[in-house]
């Protein structure tokens, strides 16, 4: 049986990659994908703990996270399309109209 620590370390690595990508990448779609990566890292943690403690609630949380992620993807992609139509760019650094 794989010890839980392995799952957690993997999850932490995935999450860190997600954060790093979010901070580094300029393409908004890549940024979006890194968010998904972070969410899934968290999902992995949930599932690992659910298995470890023999509790089903962790798995149910995962479903919620996936539903929310799907909804977020739908809204987010719509925003990205609208953004691309108006600004003709996917670079997040150029989307700074709210700046002082």
């Amino acid at each position: 049986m794989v010890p839980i620590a392995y799952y957690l370390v993997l999850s932490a690595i995935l999450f860190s990659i997600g954060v790093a990508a979010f901070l580094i990448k300029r393409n908004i779609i890549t940024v979006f994908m890194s968010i998904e990566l972070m969410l899934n890292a968290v999902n992995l943690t949930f599932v690992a703990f659910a298995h470890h403690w023999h509790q089903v609630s962790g798995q149910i949380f995962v479903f919620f996270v996936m539903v929310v992620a799907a909804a977020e993807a739908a809204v987010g992609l719509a925003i990205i399309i609208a953004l691309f139509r108006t600004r003709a760019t996917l670079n997040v650094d150029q989307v700074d109209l709210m700046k002082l």
Partner: protein
Amino acid sequence: MTSSLHLWLIPIVPFAGFLVNGLLGRRFPKALVTTVAWVATLIPFLHVLNIALHFSSLTLPYTENVGTWITAGSFHADFAFALDQLTLIMLLVVTGVGFLIHLYSAGYMAHEEGYWRFFAYLNLFMFFMLTLVLAENFLLMFVGWEGVGLASYLLIGFYFTKDSAANAGKKAFVVNRIGDFGFLLAMFLLIAHFGTLSFSEVFGQISQHPEWQGGFLTAIALFLVLGATGKSAQIPLYVWLPDAMEGPTPVSALIHAATMVTAGVYMVARAHLIFDRSPFALSTVAIIGAATALFAATIGLVQTDIKRVLAYSTVSQLGYMFLACGVGAYSSGIFHLLTHAFFKALLFLSAGSVIHALSGEQDMRVMGGLRKKIPITFWTMTMAVFAICGIPPFAGFFSKDEILYQAFVSPNPIGKLVWFVGLFTAGLTAFYMFRLWYLTFFGESRAQEAAHDDHGHGHSHGVHESPWIMLGPLVILAILSVIGGWVGVPEALGGHAEIDHFLSPVLQVAPEAAEGGKSLELLLAIVSVVTGAIGWFIAHLLYFAKPELRAQLAAKVRGLHSLLLNKYWIDELYGAVIVTPVLLVSRYVLKGLFDTGVITGGGLALGYTTQGIGSVVQRIQSGNIRSYAGWLALGAAALLLLTYFGFGAHLSF
């Protein structure tokens, strides 16, 4: 008659007139403005007349509570009106003389800008004055008190484009504020000691406690006196009244002679139970009155502006009324108030008619010889002059003599002194009034020799008698100035002193003169008439028979003459001692140090600090999504570390 008298109608109708004319008058034709103002004054007058006719069947004092105004704990003040003998006399004076002056104003103001404004203010004044007179408690009286001050301010500054008029209005208002401050303090003391401001309750408590003498009652009385000196133009606060002559002449007649300035006398008479318990306060009133009477009369001797002479004469006559109150002869004071309202209003209105005839000229040095040109004005003015000089049987004779007699027989040790001052002032009064009379109406016209440039007054078409709308009130007031005193013919002269008996339920009358007193009263009357005649004779000599004596006399007493001409330099003194220091403190300490330094400086410092912090902190708000995300990640990491190392011990994972 037990049904309601609807006293509230008396003040509210002029107020309605004020609202109509004040809000809509600008668009009304002049005739409509006049009608509204007249009706709004006529209705209260008729109402008061009606009450006067049924007066004997009333149970007095009659009070009418319109509604509660203030309730705070055990203290409450109501919109309550009261009617008694004193109120009735004041009401008759205010509405009667007020109505006549409204009539007169329509003629006098016919060519003026802001006709509607004038009548709106006049009605506003009537509202406040009637509130003052009818009030059943000190607080409501104070509302009227302040309100007449406001109306007075507005009307003095009626020609507000003229600097001197605007300044005179301000001066009147500021000086009156000092007096109002005294009134306020008196009210605070009343609340502290009686828990109420209602006349009936305060005076009821005083009557039940004959052991209360002096002490806090003296304090209250002295503060009330301070208030009265402001409103009634007594020393030391008289300085605003002569300047108030900048207002239109009908205003001078109504507000600054007949009604408003007598409010102080009315207030002292109304609160006489307080004064009776404080001999010190009474003596103060008597001394202030006598000093003011003499002081103002001496200034009046040499003034050249016809209205200023009358203004100083008003101050002086108000001094007589205070003198009367000070020796405890309140009803004599009110009697003089009544007759003074007639003859002083008449003097001002006649002077207004003279000014009108001369197209705005007020300097007596360029008048003269008007007797033939404006005969009706001459005759009405003559009645008024005879009345104020105390020549029998004109109105002023009876009231003035009664005051002097009461002062003479007063048990107060200063009674004889104030009697002598009053007598001397009577002589001065006769002198300056006949001086005015001779200068204005007799001799040759001096208008030509003082060839002033014709400043395009619009209608300077020679000397002309005023229209009948002005002469009518003059004639009525002239009749009243002759017969007005007959309501108080003393018993020594075969009368019944009706007014004293009428007022006796409100103001206790000084003990009836003994048998020997009657001959004394007769003697004193003769003395004062002789004094008046001497004043007349000197005026006749100097201003009619031998005018060349005048320059010689003025040269002999040059110092005195210039002292009087400059009004004892009181305005300059006040300016140097009070106004200038206040201005300096305001400018350099309050404005310079406090306002600019502390308030503005503090505000600016606060603003700049915020701005500085903002300019540093705003760098966080870069608008760059990734920097926000970075901060977020950093924050999350910091939180994680904090939970792990900081207080991880409490949270076991």
